[in-house]
């Protein structure tokens, strides 16, 4: 472990050689090769998918466990703390850009494709020859009515409730943070469980909404561009909420195991940042996907 044990904050923390990253790569590659084979009916079978997923999840667990032990073992200096702060910030920025691609697709489809398919501007000929009579109004599944007629999920129904749930969870995690900083561990844990519960409730309602959309509204992933953007945006957001809830759960269990100090708890703060990011993305979704 070498310099890792050094307590002097002027020295650097350099972790010992590790097999985690390589093993994680092996797991991930097995997973994607399995999925690719499945998509192309290559008869690779489900083994690589399961093996890859299990290896990946196990290594991610071990890796974070290792970080938690290093942190609780007092190996991290103020510089390592700043490293994790910067690292998490830039990671969240990359996530923002990932969502930006899908938001961009939504804006492009609504703002440009719809009028152009309807013959606006220089696209008269396209309209007349390819899709005569098409009036592109949002929501749309395109001139070919791909996926059949559908209805949309009204904004001021379950989505509004979910907005309130996520906003409340942003408050509860802040309360937990204050409690932690004031050294009230029991209170902090309570607020954290409340946050986890709110995250899980959000996911429950989101799942209900999807079932409702598929069964009663005929709104599916295949409902043209509306269905594509709706499910890809809310679906990726839902995956991030799932991940965020798991992260909250881990942090809560670590709090119960006595981890973190009132003045040193970046693991907690990093998860809180991530949770707020998920929250902000949802507000964007609520406004431009459900409401407008």
């Amino acid at each position, binding site marked *: 472990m070498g310099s890792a044990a050094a307590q002097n904050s002027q020295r650097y923390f*350099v972790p010992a*050689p*590790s097999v985690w990253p390589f093993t994680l790569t092996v797991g991930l590659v097995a997973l994607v*090769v399995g*999925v690719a084979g499945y998509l192309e009916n290559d008869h690779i079978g489900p083994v690589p998918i399961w093996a890859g997923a299990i290896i990946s999840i196990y290594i991610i667990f071990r890796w974070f466990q290792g970080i938690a032990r290093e942190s609780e073992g007092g190996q991290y200096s103020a510089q390592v703390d700043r490293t994790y702060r910067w690292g998490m910030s830039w990671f969240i920025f990359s996530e923002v850009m*990932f969502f930006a691609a899908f938001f961009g697709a939504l804006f492009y489809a609504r703002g440009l494709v719809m009028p152009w398919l309807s013959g606006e501007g220089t696209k008269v000929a396209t309209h007349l020859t390819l899709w005569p009579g098409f009036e592109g109004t949002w929501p749309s*599944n395109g001139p070919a009515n791909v996926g059949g007629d559908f209805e949309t999920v009204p904004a001021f129904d379950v989505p509004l409730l979910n907005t309130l749930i996520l906003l409340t969870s942003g408050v509860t995690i802040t309360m937990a943070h204050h409690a932690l900083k004031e050294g009230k561990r029991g209170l902090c844990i309570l607020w954290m469980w409340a946050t986890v519960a709110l995250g899980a409730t959000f996911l429950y309602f989101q799942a209900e909404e999807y079932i409702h959309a598929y069964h009663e509204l005929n709104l599916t992933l295949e409902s043209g561009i509306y269905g*594509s953007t709706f499910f890809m945006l809310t679906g990726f957001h839902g995956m991030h909420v799932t991940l965020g809830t798991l992260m909250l759960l881990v942090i809560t269990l670590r709090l119960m195991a006595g981890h973190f100090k009132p003045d040193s708890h970046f693991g907690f703060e990093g998860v809180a940042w991530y949770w707020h990011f998920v929250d902000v993305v949802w507000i964007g979704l609520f406004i431009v996907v459900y409401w407008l």
Partner: protein
Amino acid sequence: MAHAHDAHAHHDDHHHGPDKGIMRWIKTTNHKDLGTLYLFFAFTMFFIGGLMSLVIRAELFHPGLQFVQPEFFNQMTTMHALVMIFGGVMPGFVGLANWMVPMMIGCSDLALPRVNNWGFWILPFAFAMLIGTLFMDGGAPAGGWTMYPPLVLQTGNAFPFLIFAVHLMGISSITGAINVVVTILNMRAPGMTLLKMPLFVWTWLITAYLLIAVMPVLAGAVTMLLTDKYFGTSFFTAAGGGDPVMFQHIFWFFGHPEVYIMILPAFGIVSTIIPTFARKSLFGYDSMVYASASIAFLSFIVWAHHMFTVGMPLAGELFFMFATMLIAVPTGVKVFNWVATMWKGSMTFETPMLFSIAFVFLFTIGGFSGLMLAMTPVDFQYHDTYFVVAHFHYVLVPGAVFSIIAAVYYWIPKWTGRMYNEFWGKVHFWLSAVFINLTFFPQHFAGLAGMQRRVPDYAVQFTDFNVISTIGAFGFFVAQFIFIFNMLSSCFGWFGRKQGLPDRVWEGAHGLEWTVASPAPYHTFEDPPQFSDSEGTAIHDEAVAKA
């Protein structure tokens, strides 16, 4: 390189040194080991991508079909681009950043060493997947590296492997970029303020920012392709209210910053090497930093100049034309500064300097042809011709690749403690410089005369240009083996090359990397050095002016 750490006794007793054998490389968290791995990987990919380009050039030696079928030819053009961009140039620069950024800013390692290992080891797997598609039903992707739908959706079994390979490369790039940004922002030696950083560090900081901003967008774009093909979405299908052109917009929102990702580190390298061999500090350090930042900013608002002929509204054509031409301003500042750095310098022409000067000349040619392509009405004729091929190869080969070669020549004495052979370095330079122009200069004429890119056959009037181009390509490829053997000889001490170079290998070189032993010990700067005023002065011209 493998024995670099043995040569120097450590001042501390707690280092065990690396593991032995293959496990050293699999488990390593050392930035020098990982830099070495990145560079070996990049040059392996340059070799594979180069072989693919030779298939292309052999087929184009004469009109008509002689060696390969059109389908395989298209696979070669697609795979050549993907391998060279994501496997060659980008990992090459990441390897240099791995080696040099910690040594230049005076810290022990990158900020997140285990993540660094992960970012590297994804690459061999991702490229095994990508290159493996050559042996699948339906062959490798053949719709061009830009993966435009609907054509790319006709790829055979290779399709999901292409998409997932791009995803994996994206993970590698983003983790690597986060690592570089965090290292630079957080780990600089005391006294090294942002505007005292070596320019290579500055350009890599900006490059890493671009990577974090646009690689996720590419991941989003290829995810949409995947769902369009397998899950019934309609992102790029007009019948469902989508638009195939939308893919081009999203792709080039990634793709244009990507071209600066491949050239900004090159700017940093050249800005490091020219002052060394001109024995002057860099002219206009601050303006270099601001020019790099301006280029990065502008790179986000010029993407649609790749799509002038796709049928955009006039306002879009005009906006993207003028925004693109604006980039000539900061780029011009840079070229001016390089020339002004050499002005009245005490110049010598060692191999890294030769490659850097060639970079200034030949990159500028590529820049000028880019300016021609920026003009919308003119682009209507040039679009998808060999003029475009000539343009981007001028900025990528005598641009990006020459800078990587220059950097390896420049720093390999520091890495291995053994000087390369200067005579063979010069031979390599002149062969490269002659053959690369022989390869790509005639393509300007072929393109202006109307020869299209991505075709295995062409009209007979283009024959002469293509014959010259093919001869140049084979010559360039063969010449690179001189370089490879020269560098491997330094690595492994072939031909009796001995260690024993001074710390400051080049008398005109400045910066913290020249204050440590040659070869650099396995761990450098375990205690942060004080960044002395004299080193800062040498890097930053303003202080020189005061003195």
